[in-house]
């Protein structure tokens, strides 16, 4: 404080006034920026709240036992005696495709992540794999649908649940790669050295010690991948296409929750749109709950 006073006492009154004005200006700008940041954060949270509240408000209206247990029915618009439709076919289809996709994508992603963390180091091939995997992580998912259409749907003669699961599996791989590599890199090298010093071969060191030490992190990646593909629509539109009846046949077109939501939301009939909202609520709750579980799992570790 004393230093400030001594400096200002050297200044002429005009200069001192100028300095005070400058100080006020700096403070004003700082406060304006702070207010803007607060506002920006508020805007972000507002959108999340708006989406969640809209989903709850409009999704609960039609959410009842029928929605969960009945198959698709055409609109009852203007005739209440017709049977009420549901989303059972879509829920079952979504679960089947999501589980198969996770089961296919996880081992591949795990091996790639292990390769990057344990073998690649900074080799050119490793850098290329890491780079391409990161590109795949953000690549437009609709193009993965086009790819599977060309290599699976066309040769097998039609849309199928298996094609849908394969498209989703491609989306799973890079998510699992990223988390596996990150988690394995957090493991201290001394642990690896200790295991190898006991005479264990490298592959036993990785599978029995490194994977186990990174288990919760790897599991988080798998959960995040699962949540991500649960809501994927575009690739399924081109691969498993959708189906109005309950089907567990992987060689035929299969319904999925996101595709059913898309079709019913665009149907223009109020009762079908209500069902679409219930489906949207189910998908979002599922995705967000899995995300929160994954985060809790990861936090326990650190």
């Amino acid at each position, binding site marked *: 404080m004393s230093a400030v006073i001594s400096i200002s006492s050297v200044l002429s009154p005009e200069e001192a006034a100028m300095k005070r004005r400058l100080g006020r200006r700096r*403070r004003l*700008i*700082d406060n304006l*920026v*702070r207010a803007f*940041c607060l506002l*920006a*954060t508020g*805007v*972000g*949270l507002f959108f999340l709240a*708006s*989406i969640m509240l*809209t989903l709850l408000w*409009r999704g609960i209206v039609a959410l009842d036992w029928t929605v969960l247990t009945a198959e698709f029915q055409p609109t009852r618009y203007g005739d209440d005696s017709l049977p009420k439709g549901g989303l059972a076919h879509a829920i079952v289809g979504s679960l089947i495709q999501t589980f198969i996709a996770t089961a296919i994508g996880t081992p*591949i992603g795990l*091996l*790639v992540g292990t*390769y990057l963390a344990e*073998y690649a180091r900074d080799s050119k*091939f490793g850098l290329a*794999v890491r*780079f*391409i*995997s990161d*590109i*795949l992580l*953000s690549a*437009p*998912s*609709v*193009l*993965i649908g*086009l*790819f599977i*259409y*060309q290599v699976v749907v066309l040769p097998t003669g039609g849309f199928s649940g298996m094609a849908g699961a394969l498209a989703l599996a491609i989306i799973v*791989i*890079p998510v699992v*790669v990223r988390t596996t590599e990150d988690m394995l890199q957090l493991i201290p090298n001394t642990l690896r050295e200790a295991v190898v010093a006991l*005479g264990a*071969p490298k*592959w036993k060191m*990785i*599978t029995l010690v490194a994977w186990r030490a990174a288990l919760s992190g790897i599991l988080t990646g798998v959960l995040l991948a699962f*949540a*991500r593909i649960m809501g*994927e*629509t*575009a690739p399924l*539109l*081109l691969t498993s296409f959708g189906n109005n009846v309950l089907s567990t046949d992987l060689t035929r077109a299969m319904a999925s929750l996101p595709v059913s*939501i898309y079709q019913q*939301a665009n149907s223009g009939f109020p009762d079908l749109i209500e069902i679409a909202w219930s489906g*949207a609520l189910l*998908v*979002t709750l599922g*995705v967000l709950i899995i*995300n929160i579980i994954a*985060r809790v799992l990861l936090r326990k570790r650190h």
Partner: protein
Amino acid sequence: MSASTSTFPPVGRRRRISDTGDRIFAALCTAAGGFVLVLLGAIIVTLFIGALPAFERFGVAFIWGTTWNPVEGREEFGAGVSIVGTLVSSLLAIIFAVPIAFGIAFFLTELAPGWLKRPIGTAIELLAAVPSIIYGMWGLFVLVPFVQKNIQLALGEQLAALPLVGFLFESTNFAGTSLFSASLVLAIMILPFIAATMRDVFDQVPAVYKESAYGLGATRWEVMTGVVIPYTRVSVVGGIMLGLGRALGETMAVTFVIGNANRIATSLFDSTTTIASVIAMEFPESLAGSLQQSALFAIGFLLFVISFAVLAISRWLLRPRLK
């Protein structure tokens, strides 16, 4: 000497550890790595093969042609409108999202008290987890009516009277499904990605640098513009490019709110289309092997090239920080 060595078992009889397991496992991991490369290569090649008939028929002009006519017998396709729609909607989304994302990142790194950082950070990250289709529905049933009533009719009509820039706001499309709505939804969707990247790179600025600036009496804003931004500039641009890459390929949300008209939008409130939404709208109904399907593969290939370039630049810019 000979007595002491004989107490140890001869070296030759020690059980040798076989390295077969190691070789198999290393080969397996390397093969999986190679699979990822092959996968991406296969995607490019497959899209290109699917696109060949359209490229052969229309040549390079396909890229800027603006006609899109799937009617049998008079088929003609050009990617011009959807490419422009994709680029313009994504760039607008970036313009909307970057200031907000910056505000959130600044708030989370410098302003928020410790106990608030985690819940708000998590909430913003959850915004990234909400599926695209949900943004589409919310956009169509909540945002579009709002834009139509409170922005286009209330504000747009006034702004349309302005000289020179008025045409940007003047539109005969009053449905509310428009370029503006699409950019707004895209902005909300990429907001968490940009904000999270910015927060992560801001957090990596050494505390000593910031503390030195604070010690000299700098305000938080001056620390931000004088220390944090210069230190993280490259990575911040990388984060923005990542958001751009995401926006370019976004499909379902855009399909719901952009209006899907094969027309270049001259006004914010015109309806237009993007590559991804043309594919989502027309592909499921196109005939296998038709020229239309090939044209859809062709625009898919172009989208792949564009987003690959953007994502590669983003990744390259983020390389020093997010390693």
